[in-house]
């Protein structure tokens, strides 16, 4: 299996009892790419991401992430990836600063590095006034940006974002995508799932998942030509409608 790809997936499946949540998916993601993972509710996006992050064992198939096998090398994978789950997963009852300090510590950063990073993140996110407030008091959009920043504390080469913009207003979403672009420009690979078709337009390539299978994969421009549509929204509807 090639290791110059950021992610390389081959016939990966996950069953829950008789139910097949992910059904023999195969694809590759280049380094530095923004890869969109689209699909309706229950398509199997989260299940696939969890397998790639080492949170869930595959039923069959193989995948490498940052060159390491998800079947045998999950601890090495964990050092090289960031993950932002569909659920908000910072501690609500810790302050902004304490959250950053905690995750920095868990990732094994030195004390000075933690305090440098904290200052840097807080000024980048404009959270100066809020740094000693409880995280629960932040608006949702800010929480999500903070979660993104903490998942980048250890400078991973690949970052998995599972619906990072669920439930926030368009302006916050736009700001969030600005950060995603900035991350990609630093050479990091971004693997992102979303429900919002306008966000799909921002990706370098997208895959569309339906009932556990990847039924379409390509660049947004390429797909628009193939289906002769002007928006990703229309493409999505016509593909899902066919199936």
């Amino acid at each position: 299996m090639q290791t110059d790809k950021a992610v390389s997936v081959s016939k990966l499946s996950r069953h829950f009892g008789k139910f097949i949540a992910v059904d023999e998916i195969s694809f590759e993601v280049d380094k530095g790419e923004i890869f969109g993972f689209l699909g309706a509710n229950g398509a199997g996006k989260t299940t696939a991401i969890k397998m790639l992050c080492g949170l869930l064992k595959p039923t069959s198939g193989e995948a490498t992430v940052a060159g390491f096998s998800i079947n045998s090398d999950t601890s090495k994978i964990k050092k090289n990836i960031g993950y932002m789950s569909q659920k908000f997963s910072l501690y609500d009852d810790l302050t902004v600063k304490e959250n950053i300090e905690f995750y920095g510590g868990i990732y094994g950063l030195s004390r000075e590095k933690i305090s440098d990073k904290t200052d840097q993140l807080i000024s980048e996110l404009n959270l100066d006034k809020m740094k000693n407030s409880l995280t629960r008091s932040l608006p949702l959009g800010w929480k999500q940006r903070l979660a993104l920043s903490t998942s980048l504390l250890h400078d991973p080469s690949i970052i998995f974002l599972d619906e990072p913009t669920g439930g926030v207003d368009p302006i916050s979403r736009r700001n969030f995508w600005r950060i995603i672009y900035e991350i990609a420009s630093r050479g990091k690979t971004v693997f992102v799932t979303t429900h919002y078709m306008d966000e799909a337009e921002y990706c370098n390539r997208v895959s569309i998942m339906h009932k556990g299978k990847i039924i379409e994969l390509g660049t947004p421009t390429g797909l628009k030509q193939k289906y002769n549509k002007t928006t990703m929204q229309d493409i999505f509807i016509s593909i899902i409608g066919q199936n």
Partner: protein
Amino acid sequence: MRQIFYLVQKEFRQIFRDFSMVRILFVVPLIQIFILGNAITTDVKNIKIVFQDQDKTPYSREFISRFVHSEYFKIIGFEENYNRLSSYLDSGKASLAIVIPRHFQRDIVLKDKPDIQLLVDGVDGNSAGVSLGYITDIVQKYQERLIESSPDLSLQVKNVRRVETEPRFWFNPNLESKLYIVPGIIALILLIITLFLTSMGIVREKEIGTLEQLMVTPIRSYQLVIGKIIPFSILGMLEIMISMGFVYLIFGIGVKGSLPLLLFESSLFIISTLGLGIFISTISDTQQQALFIAWFFMIFSILLSGFFIPIANMPPVIQHITRLNPLRYYIVILREIYLKGTSFKDLIPETLAMATFGLCLFFAAVMRFRKKLG
């Protein structure tokens, strides 16, 4: 190692972030010790007693007067009609009726065997047993006096007859139940606090998704477990000291034995409650579930500990089951150290049993936890 430090620091920050935790730590033991210590009592005092004196002689009056002077009894009256005695017991006006038959004095003087009749309200078997014990004691003393004052017995016989049972409860001289129960309450508090905090603490992270977030970091599951155990063990130890402080302030009962030994034994006990807490966290997905299951286990370990129901009174099968219960040993150990000042040497069997089951439980739970996290 540093990861563990950050986990522990985070845990303490969360615990003391809001005041409710501090309240739980202090108010729970205070209330439990105060209420349970006063309410659960096996002392039997002021047993209400009704007499029927059919003899009405100096001897019978002398016998009755011995009840007047006992703090355990309260004479509520004399009833002439034998048939009406039972109504006293039925209505609860008295829990004990004593009938002194006619010829009581004559039988004593003539060296016949005098009988007295006792009617005891047996609904509360425990109290009934205790009051019978008191009566036996009084009767025995009365008899001794008769023997001593009897003119026609040689000194030799008198001395032989002196062999008597005089119960002397060494470490709890007046058989005060508080003394007996309070160490048990401390054990319960420790069980409750550590069991609930551990299981809820882990499940909470599962619920809000931070556990999953931690699992994508390079942290190892053993570090995660240690990071949870350290804060809750410290809280448990703190809780023990707070409880002992309250016990001393409220009841004036202090620890007779070695405090370090007591803390050592407590830490062995905590291993089992933390293990159980971790186990519960692996079988529940929400805090409600964890609470419910922890409650279930708590009730079982209390019922099977001998705290409320003496183990000797249980069916043999159940008695064997109690041997698997670390709380059973811990309550005994705590009582021994608290009341007698028993040394470690004499507590080795209990300590070994408690530690063995505690460690088995703990390692089984941790294995399961690690497997669950994948």
